[in-house]
């Protein structure tokens, strides 16, 4: 497989969970999971918090702001961008 360069995330983009993927909480596993054709990814808590806000209406900047408000912190931009970049490479989300 060829190496790919990381997907560049910009603040105005609007991420949404990709077609065929579904985010849901699984009580038996006590964790959020991302389901897709014949597969499943268990999400760590921060990935789950970000993906729950990828609703197809909220921009990357607004997701960062909402997370910073919810967790009473600042400086999350870099972490959110780098996670969204990975999520995009994995085809978990699409950007518009």
């Amino acid at each position, binding site marked *: *497989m*060829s190496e*790919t360069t990381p997907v560049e995330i910009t603040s105005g983009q609007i991420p949404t969970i990709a*077609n*065929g993927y*579904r985010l*849901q909480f*699984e009580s*038996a*596993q006590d964790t959020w*999971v991302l*389901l*897709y*054709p*014949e*597969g*499943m*990814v*268990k999400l760590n808590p921060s990935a789950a918090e970000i993906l729950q806000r990828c609703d197809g209406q909220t921009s990357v900047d607004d997701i960062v702001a909402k997370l910073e408000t919810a967790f009473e912190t600042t400086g999350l931009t870099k972490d959110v961008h780098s996670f969204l970049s990975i999520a995009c490479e994995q*085809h978990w989300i699409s950007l518009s």
Partner: protein
Amino acid sequence: MSSPMLQHGLATDPKATRPGPPLWLLAELTYRCPLHCAFCFNPVDFARQSDELDTEGWISTLQQARALGSVQCGFSGGEPMLRNDLETLVGEANRLGFYTNLLTTGVGLNEKRARALKDNGLDHIQLSFQDSTREMNDFLSNTRTFDLKNKVASLIKDHDWPMVLNCVIHKMNIDHIDKIIEMALELGAETLELANTQYYSWAVVNRDHLLPSKAQLDKAEEVTNEYRERYGDRLRIIFVVPDYYENRPKKCMNGWGNVFLTIAPDGTALPCHTARMLPGAAFPKVTEHSIESIWYGSEGFNRYRGKDWMKEPCRSCPEADNDLGGCRCQAFMLTGDPAAADPVCDKSPDRGVVDTAIEQAQSTQTSIVGDQPLIFRDPKESLRLTEPAE
């Protein structure tokens, strides 16, 4: 058996003492099928097992499995479209929170049923390119097959399902892998699984016809890699090598009774869809036991769980955790002992049986091999091949 479906993140905690939930539920709704594939996964004696759970039986199965934590549900067969209650079952699975997958040949999938499946929440269709004709070597030029798949592929696109195509690869079509990939591109597939035949059930009966040579396999992988380079993300191609050409066995089903629960058409609960071939006590039925007691408590599901059952060379092998000794069915078929090391492993004292099969496969002849003709799956052959000895 190996399945790409197990390679995408269904990891479990190796330190856990109690097995995790049966995350994957495979509902084999029926062994009936309009096709006659010579590599079919259904048991060779399928014609002797014609009982099927009724709608209520399947709904209860879905409810119990979901309550235990099952999350992926595959509706398979045979051809699951032959069940008139498929839409009802998909609807129930969706309501329960399953991610629902339909594994179909596309036969019987028309606009009306596609709409109904969509309305009932079906998440994904995996369309198989299994040959529906007896002209195996004419596989790719068979226009009837292509037209049907083309129509079904359009239905999949129109209903906004992700397009996953599966094509079973063997000696007679592996040299045309470029054409198979071209066809997938033409149909607009997002994922193509090039699944080499594994040697279970009907594929064992026909092994000499189906096992490709090393040269064929290497060429096919090379061609596949060229297409991956050329098309990148437009088409994700998964290439599954036949076990026989590996030198370490697969971690079959990601471990016995670990994540995978198959329910056969008659309600028999199995750790994999071929496990019924193994000697020993019969596996439990969902009509007689709860799924919770079957999964956690039954002898069948505990028989090869973990590592306590292992013999040498597996027992002291430093790689035992990687593959858990491989596949029990393969060990049984090739050595007669279901607790032996999977002979695919080059540490197995029985590796020679795999090497012999490979040697026989190096012939360039691709049509008729040996004296035995290719045997197509059908009820008459099923009864003939499994006639009790006098």
